[in-house]
């Protein structure tokens, strides 16, 4: 039996001119399995990359209005012109591995496969990029394993990913106003019941993170996007599994922030024990990675890796404050009904435990514990009401 020919389109967003435009263009046009359609969406009208790509066949360049800034806004413009069966979405800073399209095609031959998240690899290595690469490799391998066991696990959007065009219903009618700002294509797929899969063999190369400043900037952008996605889609997932998987990444990072920055203030001994355990775990992971990828350099990244964890945790918390507190983009009532119940429930639980364990006078112990229960109940009910009122409306 011959498999049906699959038309593969590539949508590239270009906001700023990449430094290595030629190598990026080369990675697109010299794929081992040629692309059927390349759509470049650019808001910088004199882009060098556009002129380079125009010389190749099957390329159409779409000039987007200058007021569109985010990657996703540009992707939305490009998606309207897509004619292929499978669409790969990327941005102009990411050259693809030469067999990227071939591997994607192989993956999508199976009807069950929906989306593939590209596996990022740094191309030019220095100590910082090596640390970053190690961390990313470990994380993506963990995600991959985790995803095999729990297919509902929500994967945060990556820079490069592919999906079947038919999975986004009415792709031509998608309006930017309907799906909010950044990285919403994956979220849209997620809403339609698709489960994105992270694959390690579809590699695309990253060129950034050459120095710490750029690295932090990139992190800030990425975490701001993640928080915005969380803020705007908080009430979207319908089932409890989805809610859990949707929030687990954020909770994980927030717990990490707590352990790194706040726990030492409360109990320094316990925090050191935890940190030691974490370092041991990372050591094992990096050792495993060094053996697996035959890259012994990975063994020297440990101090840098821990430093980067602190940087990431700091930026994560910083962006949380920025998106949820300073920018105040969501309406006050939404913050009131989402963040306040979560914080309130946590605070009530902590206070309840403290009063049970540490309050000596019986009357106070009873009163405090009961009050914490009452507060917990009220906060939980507020959260539940908000979720019940909004999740269905936002879906429809």
């Amino acid at each position, binding site marked *: 039996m011959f498999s049906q020919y699959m038309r593969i389109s590539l949508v590239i967003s270009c906001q700023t001119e990449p430094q290595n435009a030629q190598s990026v263009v080369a990675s697109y046009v010299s794929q081992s399995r040629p692309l059927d359609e390349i759509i470049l969406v650019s808001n910088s009208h004199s882009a060098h990359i556009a002129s380079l790509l125009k010389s190749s066949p099957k390329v159409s360049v779409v000039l987007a209005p200058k007021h569109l800034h985010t990657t996703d806004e540009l992707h939305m413009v490009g998606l309207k012109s897509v004619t292929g069966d499978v669409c790969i979405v990327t941005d102009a800073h990411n050259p693809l591995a030469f067999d990227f399209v071939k591997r994607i095609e192989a993956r999508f031959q199976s009807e069950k496969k929906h989306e593939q998240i590209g596996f990022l690899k740094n191309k030019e290595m220095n100590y910082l990029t090596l640390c970053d690469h190690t961390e990313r490799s470990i994380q993506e391998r963990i995600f991959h394993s985790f995803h095999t066991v729990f297919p509902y696990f929500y994967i945060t959007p990556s820079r490069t990913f592919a999906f079947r065009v038919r999975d986004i219903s009415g792709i031509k009618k998608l309006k930017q106003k309907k799906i909010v700002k950044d990285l919403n294509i994956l979220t849209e797929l997620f809403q339609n019941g698709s489960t994105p899969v992270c694959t390690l063999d579809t590699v695309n190369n990253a060129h950034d993170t050459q120095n710490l400043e750029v690295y932090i900037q990139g992190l800030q952008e990425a975490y701001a996007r993640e928080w915005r996605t969380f803020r705007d889609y908080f009430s979207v997932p319908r089932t409890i599994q989805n809610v859990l998987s949707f929030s687990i990444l954020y909770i994980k990072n927030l717990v990490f922030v707590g352990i790194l920055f706040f726990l030492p203030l409360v109990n320094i001994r316990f925090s050191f024990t935890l940190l030691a355990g974490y370092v041991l775990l990372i050591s094992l992971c990096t050792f495993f990675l060094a053996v697996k990828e035959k890259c012994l350099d990975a063994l020297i990244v440990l101090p840098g890796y821990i430093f980067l964890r602190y940087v990431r945790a700091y930026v994560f918390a910083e962006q949380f404050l920025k998106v949820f507190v300073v920018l105040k983009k969501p309406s006050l009532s939404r913050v009131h009904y989402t963040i306040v119940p979560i914080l309130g429930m946590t605070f009530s639980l902590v206070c309840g435990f403290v009063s049970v364990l540490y309050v000596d006078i019986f009357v106070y112990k009873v009163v405090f514990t009961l009050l914490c229960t009452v*507060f917990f109940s009220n906060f939980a009910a507020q959260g539940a009401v908000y979720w019940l009122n909004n999740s269905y409306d936002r879906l429809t």
Partner: protein
Amino acid sequence: MIDSLKKNKLNINKFFVYLALHLFTVALIASVFLLGPTQNESFPRLRMVIIFFASVLLAKYFIYMFVSPWNDVYIAYKKRKTRMNKTMIRYEPFVSVLVPAWNEEIGIITTVEALLKSTYKKMEIVVINNASTDNTGKNVLALIEKYNKTPAEKRKIEVVYCTENAQGKGHALNTGIKKAKGDILVSIDADCFIDPKAIYNFVQHFRDPKVMAAVGNVKVGNTDTILGTIQYLEFLFSFYFKKCDSLVNTIYIIGGAAGAFRKEVFETIGNYNATNITEDIDLSVRIQAAGMKIVYAADVLVYTEGAVCLDGLMKQRLRWKRGRFETFAEHKDLFFSTNSKHNKLLSWFILPLALFGELQLGLELFFLAFLYVFSFLTHDYSSFISGIIVVSSMFFIQVAFDGKVRHKLRFFLLAPIGWLLFYVSTFVEFNALIKALWGYYRKNEIKWQKWERNGVFTDKVALKNN
């Protein structure tokens, strides 16, 4: 000019009173840290009795506070289920709004005008002039005449005016029921300001065919004075607790200020009992006795004018208290009833607890005096501190989770002194209890009382409160 000076003086007085109460609370808390409590084992039995009464009351409040918010979850769940099943069919029954008025020349126009601005248009307003001796009738007729001159396409709500010469709110409402054409009857006091969405929200609660009556969320509108603020907080407490009662169908008071009923209710159990001075409580208890379902509609906002002087407040509470006793005496078969129609929770728990509350109120002043003397002698302020913490937290929860976040900040500041503010209402309630019991024993007659009205419900005030 004089008005603004008076207002400034009032605000300054209020500020100093609140400041003094805050200082007293802080001093009491500070004394716990500064003075170590001494061991004192005197009056063990009396202390046990006080602890027993306090424990029952606290347990009741904690249960209510724990369960109440889940009524909102239940309502949200029901709404979501309806939407998901795509059964959101149009439900627009004809509504009759009954407005009984006795000497309400100041407030009646604002009330009717607010009703005319309602977003729900399939309704009529029935104003019943109950033997008023002031300009109530004249004002209403002038308003109707003016309304009838507006273009027909804008006149979607019909206004009916009738008179009832027999004095008493029950008589007036019964006349209104006879005139009403609606499937759902809503009763609104003539001194109230109703939210434009209130009638629509009321109607939505009747989508459930089991619901036979609903009680609205009444708030005190005139909170510029200390007395008004106390009443506002009192109403906030009692209506918050109604959420819990609604969840388990144990509401037994549908206030006259905002209540809605299916017409079948009156066809089944009869009209208002005009001889009872709290005809609304009597009707509510009869509805419960008939095994019908009453719900609390928190989204139906109705602003009422609270008593502006202590004397007026005392008269109002006396009427409520006496009416409640009379109703309880009339429906004593509802207590500890084994009748399958009666709600067992109401019959075996809520109503007996209400009587227990009255007993406790009767002893409260004595208990408080004892506690003060005992605490100052022994420096053991644990009972006071617990009371402050509990009342402050309850204030905080009810203000924070009332659904409307705006205009609440100043009430948060009152949370620490809530326990002191409630002494005023305890005193008023105690006074009403004694007088009601004495009057009930002597069979003294109490009439529908009238107190001083300021007519605070201009649109501006209502908007501010909204």
